[in-house]
């Protein structure tokens, strides 16, 4: 199982991670972070395949993926 997290304060809301997730697990967020951006959010990390597509596209290293063994 994979645990994917988006660091709220690092995210700039560019949403490059959204369309690349094969499982469509990432969504626009509505919250505002300290720098005035709306961070993306992960809906259901349980579905995550650990494919890293989102990580690869994130320009701000806001995404971390862990394999839970």
């Amino acid at each position, binding site marked *: 199982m*994979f*645990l994917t997290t988006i660091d709220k304060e*690092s995210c*700039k*809301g*560019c*949403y*490059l991670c959204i*369309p*690349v997730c094969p499982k469509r697990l990432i969504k626009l967020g509505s919250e505002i972070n300290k720098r005035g*951006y709306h961070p993306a959010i992960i809906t259901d990390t349980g579905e995550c395949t*650990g494919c*890293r*597509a989102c*990580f*690869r*596209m*994130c*320009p*701000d*290293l806001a*995404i*971390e*993926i*862990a*394999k*839970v*063994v």
Partner: protein
Amino acid sequence: MAEKIAARTEALTENPFHYCPGCAHGIIHRLVAETIEELGVREKTVGVASVGCSVFAYNYFNMDMQQAAHGRAPAVATGIKRVLPDNFVFTYQGDGDLAAIGTAEIVHAAARGENITVIFVNNTTYGMTGGQSAPTTILGQKTTTTPYGRDPHVNGYPMGVSEMLSTLGGVAHVSRVSIYSPAQVNRAKRAIKKAFEVQREKKGFSFVEVLASCPTNWRMTPQDALKWIEEKMLPIYPLGEFKTAAEEGK
């Protein structure tokens, strides 16, 4: 027990990037840093930041860095490499920096076969100064200094830097990649790694051109900007490996 399979590399500092949302510089920084970490050479690498949006790169790469005058990074890198022939030296340059003001320096670092690696971020514009046209601006593209679109009769033709440098004797590796999809990001990473490996093997000058987006100055969403790379830039700037040390048989 959780094992991280994707996280920030140690070759980057903790400083958040100052880049605009969706800017390709962030992705490319990561690829370069990961490469350096994977090769285990962070402690013997000296990076050279150029003048462009990535001018602050020295705040992000967690290693010795020099900040070079606009366009002169290849000369600065030459100075460093000639002092430290066994260290790793790379430059990180934009298209204004490398393909305009720094033309002489990149051409001659290449012709000399300077054993350095150059990461060339081609976003078809001068990001930092507000979106003026660059030598790589494509025909018809509107910028703040080509408000009616780039006209070849006035501003000339987009410059294929990879094609040009490939003609030079000292060049060991040239490839053009992009970052408009996860698969392309992967390929870009492989190209960057190959370039550093060429340096490790002292085969000469290695060069990776990355087709990149500048959503802010292109006045597009980050998404649309990636699409624009794929649709508009690729026909003019074909991806691929233009030259490799292997072929050269060095």
